[in-house]
Each structure stands twice: as structure tokens, then as C-alpha cells.
């Protein structure tokens, strides 16, 4: 939900409360005004009637004159009270409905005669009043909401424009791109503060990222060089004459460990680079072709283990990827299927619509297969592998948002990869 919509909902809710309370006040106020008005009107009518009686005797011919709005009666003696205001209900002559009236009763001696006079005015019905108020309120409320909606539309277009620009810039921001974020100036303090803060933050992140990147590169460089020295010195040592079996096996063991260390280092560097998204170039990769290439490269390995390869290509799949990463991805998947296979086992490769499934036979895993994509987790702890092949696969798939699944069922390992 947009911020404006959210605030508006609160506005509307609050105004609904205000309008309700306002309605009650309106009602009371109207009532008061109408009352006041009635009283004034009745008073002026009283004066008029008195004047008429005084000036014209014709009225005096009647002992009694009565209608719904006026009632004049001659009485014998003047009572003590002189003037009362009260509400009464009378039947309407024409329609026969009961109608509320306010009446002013007073007693007056005019030209020597005592009169009881009642003047009345029809009351506005409460129901009508409430109805009127509600209609008015509803109209006002609708007008308010309509104006709010129009205003918001304009606001979000104009005032919030810089904010959406900032958002767009941040969305397209790539941490490993050298250029810094730049925002256009905004006249709104909050937004200009926000853009300054983001500029500062990204500059700092960029700097840190570059430091980190440099550190990774440098660390790898620094580690590879001593490794190269160890490896080369061991090689020279091997060439010296007169080595006995024990010495040879010491050198071989040291050399194997050095190799392993250097491969580990390389794998970790690749992993770091993938996770830092340092592979930009994108090519159109034919998955079928790439898999076939790797299979033929690995042919000897497959033959020596007497593994049967079953291919079922239902589709020719093209995907947009970095070519180097694509090489690593499919190589790792196939090498993995060969390495963790039994001799006389099988590998089955299925390419369906946007889908690759590589299954292979293998020994039951000694470790939990749920963690197979974590670094240094091996299906079988005794295995010589680095435990970085599948984490690299995972990292590449994550980079391209390709869903990756892993299963072990009835002695068959399956990796399923979906192309997007």
C-alpha cells in the first residue's frame, strides 16, 4: 500500500469521526437556532395579534376564535401567570396528521376585556432535521474525500516525484559499478536530506566494497605466490638425485597438499567473485551444446568408471549467462555426477522445457543432503573433494535467479535446475 493511500485512509477514518461529532453539533445548533427563531416569530405574532385586537373590534365579536395557529378566548378573570411557552400536538385539519406546534400562551386585558391568547407555529420535525443534517454531512464528506483523492493524485505526481526518482536510482544501483549515485536537487528538505544521506552511504559502501574486492584479489595473489614457490621448490627437490623412497613420499605428500590448497584458494576466489557479482558479460548460451562439450571432455573419466550416460534432450535450451560462469556451472554439475557415482553406474541428463535434470547413481550419503549446497559440506566426509563444487553451482544459480533443487531417493541423486 502506498504511503499516501495509507495516510489517506487514516485521514478518512479521522474525518468520519469528526463528521459524526460535527453532525451532532450541527443538529444541536440547528435546533437552537430554530428554537430561537420560533420564539422571536411567536413574539412578533403576539404583538401583531394584540395590535389587531386593539385596533379592530371585529375580532371581539367572537367569544372564541380558534385555528391551529391562533386561539383567542375571552375569559372572565386574569390568572396569575401571564406567559408560557410550550410544545403541543394538534391534528391537521386537512390531512388529519398530528403535527407538532410551539405555542405561546398569554393573557391580556385589551380594551377592558380579558383574553387568553395562544399563538402557535409549526415545529420542524426532528426526523426531518436529522435527515437534513445527514444529507448535508454525507455530501460534505463525499466532497472531502473527492478533493482528497484529487489532491493526493497531484501530490504524488508533484511532491513525491523526487522520492520516486530516488527510488528508481537506488533500484538500478549496482554495488560493483564504479560510478557514484547522483540525485537531482529537490526543494523538499526531507527528500534532499534523504538523497544526501543515500549518496554518502553508497559512496561509503562503494569504497568498502572496493576495498574488500581489492583485498580478495590481493589475498589471492599473496597466497598464490608463496604456493607457487613451495610447489616449484618441491619440483626442483624432486629432480635432485639420490632420493630414497621415504624422501620421495614426503615430497609427494607435501606437493599433493600444496595442489589441494591452491585449488581450494582458486575455488574460494571464484565463489567470492560470483557472490560479489563481478561477472558482467552476458552471452547467449546453448545448454545442450555446452553439456555435450563437457561430456566429451570428460569422456575418459566416464569410461574408466564404466558409467552409462543417458541423454534425453526434448528441447534446445538457450539461456543468457556469463560464458565463463556457464562453463563452470555445467562442468561442476557433470563432474559432480561422475565423481560421486559408482563404477558401472549411470548418469541421466534430461532437458525439458526450461528445465535440466541431472540424475546419477551413487552410494548412500553419510551426511545430511539438505546441506549439500553449503560450503565444505560433502556427501561423504571421506571423499577427497573440496566440497566447493555445488556451492559454486548454487552461487551461480542464485546470481541468475534460477531455482535449484536437490534430491536423494532410492539410491539416485537428482539435481534439478530451472531456467528463467
Amino acid at each position, binding site marked *: 500500500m502506498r504511503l499516501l493511500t495509507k495516510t489517506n485512509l487514516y485521514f478518512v477514518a479521522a474525518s468520519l469521526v469528526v463528521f459524526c461529532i460535527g453532525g451532532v453539533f450541527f443538529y444541536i445548533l440547528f435546533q437552537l437556532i430554530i428554537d430561537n427563531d420560533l420564539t422571536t416569530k411567536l413574539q412578533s405574532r403576539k404583538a401583531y395579534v394584540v395590535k389587531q385586537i386593539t385596533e379592530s373590534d371585529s375580532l371581539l365579536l367572537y367569544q372564541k376564535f380558534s385555528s391551529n395557529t391562533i386561539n383567542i378566548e375571552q375569559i372572565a378573570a386574569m390568572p396569575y401567570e401571564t406567559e408560557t411557552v410550550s410544545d403541543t400536538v394538534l391534528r391537521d385539519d386537512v390531512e388529519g396528521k398530528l403535527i407538532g406546534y410551539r405555542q405561546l400562551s398569554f393573557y391580556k386585558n385589551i380594551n377592558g376585556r380579558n383574553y387568553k391568547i395562544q399563538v402557535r407555529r409549526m415545529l420542524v420535525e426532528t426526523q426531518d432535521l436529522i435527515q437534513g443534517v445527514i444529507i448535508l454531512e454525507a455530501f460534505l464528506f463525499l466532497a472531502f474525500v473527492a478533493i482528497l483523492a484529487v489532491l493526493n493524485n497531484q501530490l504524488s505526481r508533484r511532491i513525491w516525484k523526487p522520492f520516486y526518482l530516488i527510488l528508481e536510482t537506488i533500484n538500478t544501483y549496482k554495488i560493483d559499478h564504479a560510478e557514484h549515485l547522483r540525485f537531482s536537487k529537490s526543494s523538499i528538505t526531507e527528500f534532499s536530506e534523504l538523497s544526501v544521506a543515500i549518496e554518502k552511504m553508497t559512496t561509503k559502501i562503494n569504497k568498502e566494497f572496493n576495498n574488500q574486492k581489492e583485498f580478495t*584479489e590481493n589475498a*589471492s*595473489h599473496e597466497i*598464490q*605466490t608463496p*604456493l*607457487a*614457490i*613451495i*610447489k*616449484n*621448490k618441491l*619440483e*626442483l627437490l*624432486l*629432480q635432485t638425485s639420490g632420493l630414497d*623412497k621415504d624422501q*620421495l*613420499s614426503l*615430497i*609427494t605428500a607435501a*606437493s*599433493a597438499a*600444496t*595442489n589441494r590448497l*591452491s*585449488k581450494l584458494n*582458486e575455488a574460494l*576466489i571464484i565463489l567470492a567473485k560470483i557472490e560479489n557479482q563481478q561477472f558482467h558479460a552476458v552471452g547467449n548460451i546453448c545448454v545442450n551444446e555446452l553439456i555435450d562439450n563437457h561430456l566429451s*571432455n*570428460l569422456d*575418459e*573419466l566416464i569410461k*574408466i*568408471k564404466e558409467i552409462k550416460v543417458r541423454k534425453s534432450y526434448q528441447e534446445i535450451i538457450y539461456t543468457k549467462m556469463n560464458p*565463463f560462469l556457464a562453463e563452470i556451472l555445467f*562442468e561442476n554439475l557433470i*563432474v559432480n555426477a561422475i*565423481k560421486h557415482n559408482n563404477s558401472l553406474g549411470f548418469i541421466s541428463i534430461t532437458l525439458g522445457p526450461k528445465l535440466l535434470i541431472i540424475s546419477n547413481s551413487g552410494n548412500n550419503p553419510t551426511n545430511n543432503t539438505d546441506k549439500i549446497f553449503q560450503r565444505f559440506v560433502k556427501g561423504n566426509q571421506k571423499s*577427497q*573433494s573440496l566440497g566447493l563444487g555445488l556451492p559454486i553451482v548454487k552461487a551461480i544459480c542464485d546470481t541468475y535467479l534460477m531455482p535449484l533443487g536437490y534430491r536423494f531417493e532410492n539410491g539416485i541423486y537428482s539435481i534439478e535446475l530451472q531456467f528463467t
Partner: protein
Amino acid sequence: MKILIIEDERELLNAIKEYLQSEGYLCEEAMDLPEGIHKIQRYKYDCVIADIGLPGGSGLKLIAELKAQQSDTGIIIISARNSLDDKINGLDLGSDDYLTKPFHLSELNARIKSLLRRRKFRGNNEVAFKEICLMPDTLRTIVKGSNVVLTKKEFDLLLYFISNPNKVLTKESIVEHLWGDYMDSTDSFDFIYTHVSNLRKKLIDNGSNDYVKTVYGVGYKFTAE
């Protein structure tokens, strides 16, 4: 054959130098870029081996310098950075080969020999060891005048052996030379054994002496001794 090694790491430089000298090359050294440039301007080398990360600048600058001289000196770039960009950059600029640290000295030696063959003999070349003669362009192998049919891998293996005569070659270095990084050592040792014994058999059957000596637990040595 004269080789210039430009590498800022003293011990690595020494190791490379020692191995190459034992192969009979005349080696000179430089430890930074200005010294390297100075030397290639003054003297003529058959091959230059240069690190990328050098004090005073990138070793890739040497490629441009050699190009400017229109020299036929071969150049091999060695780098600790296995980044594809560097590799492509280096090869694009005209480096003949690219090796990532850490490498096997035997591999470097094989690359130098292959480079020199391509440069000096314009590819029309033969590699000979006693009665064995290899023609890398046509992948032909001739022993005492008769043709021996070898598979591609066996041919590569033999060429690698002959490029490093009298040297102990570890199984790891052979695996890496033949299959690159594909293989993890343990499995692949078995088929090195297969390839080596097939090669041996074919050579002996065609009248060659057995030059392949097994160095127990380590690897092999190709020697006439």
C-alpha cells in the same frame, strides 16, 4: 636459447631460473618493469617470461614494447590472477601464452618449447629424442622410420615427456597437462597409468628403447640413462 625472466618474487625467480638452466637455456632476470623494458630494449631474447603484477607497472606493457620493436621474441605471461579478463587481455595484446600461478615448472618448460617451435621454425618442426621423432603439427610419430599410431592423449603425453627429458614428472603435473583442471587427482592417476603403459608398449613394439622410468609413488621420468 636466451630467456628473460621478469618476476618480482626472488624465490620464484630462482626456481624458474634453476629449472630452465638445467634444460640448457641461458637465463637472465629482471625484478621490475623498468628493468625488464630496459633489458628487452638492449638485448635480444628468444623468449620472455613476465609476471603481470610487477613493481613499476603491469607486465602486459612488455607485450606492447615487444610489438613496437617488431621482435619475434615469444612472450609468456604468468599471473597469480586467474581472471578471465587478464587472460583474454594478455592473449589479445599478443602474448603467446598465459600461465596461472602456481604452475608446474615442467608445464612452463613444455610451453616454452612449444612456443619456440612455433616462433623459430614457423611450425615446420620435428621434436626428436634418440630414435623417436614427433611432428606436433601433424601429430605423427615416427620410430626408426616407421609410423607409430598414437592417440591424441598418448601423443600429448609423449611430447610432454620429451619436452622434459631426465626430469621427474609428477602425476599431478601430467594430469594437469593432459586434462587441465578437470580431474581430481586420485581418480585420474589410474588412467595415467593406463596411458603410460599403452604408450610404452606401442613404442617398444615399434623398436624403440624403453625410456619411461617409473619413479615409485611420484610419477615418471623420461630418460635415456
